[in-house]
């Protein structure tokens, strides 16, 4: 009863977000960027670049880290969470591209970097990597579709190309996760000294690995709630351990970087940048204090909340770099228009909706062969019998 009403609440929310999102989309298409955004010549990048692109790509990082763990490092233990992570990554990248279609002034020319080259541009490299990696993710997820329809021949082909494909995926991810940080190397005159450092690419890469782990824990928890799956405790604990190591490294590097650049003094100034920076560092450091304790790592609920803090810390960092840290130099203050927020929420809602659909109709959680793959109703039935 309660589960049912909760479900319909989420469903209503989903429809509401879709409706406002579609309205904002209509406004964007007919009225241009000026009609739906608070962007200006002084502040050309806003929420769509800061959240939809920078956070979107980062939150999809669980895909390449788990592919590396399972297929390259041969850590079979993590196989059950691999496919959901690859699905999250694939949907994440599709939504990043969708977000770009809103943000680009000439969205129909999104393919131009493929034939009009400028190898000196970080944006050119990001464009190529995201295109190639989205293709890799499509291929990496395709076996789920082949299995569903029992297409054995393409499955065989996939096995032949799978190893180089996975290695390419990991390399491409390493490149563009860090390159999103490199984008901001070009703006020492704009990005506040709290965030501007030559190590931006390294920080973007490291934090993406950590958030990939956190995101996998996050989605395992929600999948277990939504689809009545057993939480794989040893897997979650393993992910948590990697998360602690990577997040600690990231946190330590951030602190060392502040020291090396003699930037601690900036924190004595009372300005919005200081407070948002401290919020970010707290959200990065606080989950560590929890995750160092074994009783947190072994308790799914505590682990979930700690991972959520990691996600928030990551998002705060990307928003600080793309918005907070740029505002002062731009001379204007920027806050997204409601239509910008509506589009972003629409894209996030689409992500959840598509994930749900994929899980419902494709073998995302089951390992092929272990359980016969049938219609959703048949699986529903199996679950009831098993329970």
């Amino acid at each position, binding site marked *: 009863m309660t589960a049912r009403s909760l479900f319909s609440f989420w469903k209503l929310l989903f429809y509401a977000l879709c409706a406002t999102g579609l309205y904002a989309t209509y406004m964007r298409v007919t009225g*241009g960027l000026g009609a739906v955004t608070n962007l200006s*010549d002084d502040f050309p990048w806003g929420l769509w670049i800061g959240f939809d692109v920078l956070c979107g790509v980062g939150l999809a990082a669980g895909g390449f880290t788990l592919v590396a763990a399972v297929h390259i490092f041969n850590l079979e233990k993590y196989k059950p969470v691999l496919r959901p992570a690859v699905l999250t990554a694939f949907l994440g990248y599709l939504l990043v591209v969708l977000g770009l279609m809103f943000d680009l002034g000439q969205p129909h020319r999104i393919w131009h970097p493929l034939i*009009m080259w400028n190898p000196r541009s970080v944006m050119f490299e990001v464009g190529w990597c995201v295109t190639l990696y989205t293709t890799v993710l499509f291929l990496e997820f395709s076996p789920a579709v082949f299995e569903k329809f029992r297409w054995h021949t393409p499955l065989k082909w996939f096995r032949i190309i799978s190893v180089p494909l996975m290695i390419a995926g990991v390399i491409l991810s390493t490149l563009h996760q860090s390159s999103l940080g490199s984008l901001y190397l070009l703006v020492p005159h704009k990005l506040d000294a709290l965030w501007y450092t030559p190590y931006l690419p390294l920080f973007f890469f490291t934090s993406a690995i950590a958030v990939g782990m956190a995101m996998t824990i996050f989605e395992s928890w929600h999948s277990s709630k939504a689809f009545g799956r057993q939480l794989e405790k040893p897997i979650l604990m393993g992910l948590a351990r990697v998360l602690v190591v990577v997040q600690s490294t990231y946190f330590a590097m951030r602190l060392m970087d502040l020291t090396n650049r003699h930037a601690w003094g900036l924190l004595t100034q009372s300005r919005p940048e200081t407070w948002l920076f401290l919020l970010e560092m707290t959200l990065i450091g606080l989950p560590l204090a929890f995750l160092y304790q074994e009783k947190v790592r072994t308790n799914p609920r505590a682990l979930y909340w700690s991972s959520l803090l990691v996600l928030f810390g990551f998002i705060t960092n990307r928003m600080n770099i793309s918005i907070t840290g740029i505002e002062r130099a731009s001379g204007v203050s920027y806050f997204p228009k409601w239509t910008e927020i509506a589009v972003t929420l629409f894209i996030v809602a689409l992500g959840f909706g598509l994930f749900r659909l994929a899980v419902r109709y494709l073998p995302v959680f089951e390992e092929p062969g272990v359980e016969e793959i049938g219609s959703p109703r048949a699986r529903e039935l199996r679950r009831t019998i098993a329970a």
Partner: protein
Amino acid sequence: MANAILFDSTKCIGCRACEGACAEKNGNPYNDAIAAKEKISALKLTTIQTKGEKYIRRMCMHCLEPACASACPVGALTKTAAGPVTYDPNKCIGCRYCMTACAFGAPAYEWNARLPLLRKCDMCSERQKAGKPTACTEACPNEATVFGDRDAMIALARKRMAENPTGYHSKIYGLEEAGGTSVLMISDVPLETLGMPANLAGLKLPALTWRALETIPSLVSVGSVLLGGVYWITHRRAEVEKAEGRKS
């Protein structure tokens, strides 16, 4: 031989003839309301800004090593040998990284267009090819804006300073700024006090991203070999374990 513009703030009388000529040349509307908005925009590729008793001209600085051109993923922005930084509207995808990159706030966007493009001063590249000076130079009644070879413009600036040592601040803005620009500025006060960005001397922005980009080839080759090696070792180990397990 690369051309440049010299702007001499001490000679500018704020008549805005350059604004009008620029608007006409670029097919932009021009009226009192637009003239009163002292800001670069898609409708106003150059502007005179009133700073108390003084005037300063803002426009694309045509950097010798432009951040915008290095930022553009499709190479729509190019530093030409003749001096101007030009824009190819047929390539532009509208990512606006150039606007983020520019230290001078020069590129402006058509925010209200359905399929917007960038607008920026191209130093009248077409007129230059025909051997003519820029429209703004031709319009300037007082030689506050002068056009010619960059070295000649530097020499002219030095000459004006030498003839009137008390009337000028000794530094030429644009000689070192952002690695050097093809628009040079002189005034009786430091240009930074008239609103020009400070702390840009010797700052070659494209080098900052290039340093990261040039590591990519080695990252790809070393990374692939390393990951391939790890793959081989871990899977070989599993194979061996399996084989030995079967034996015993």
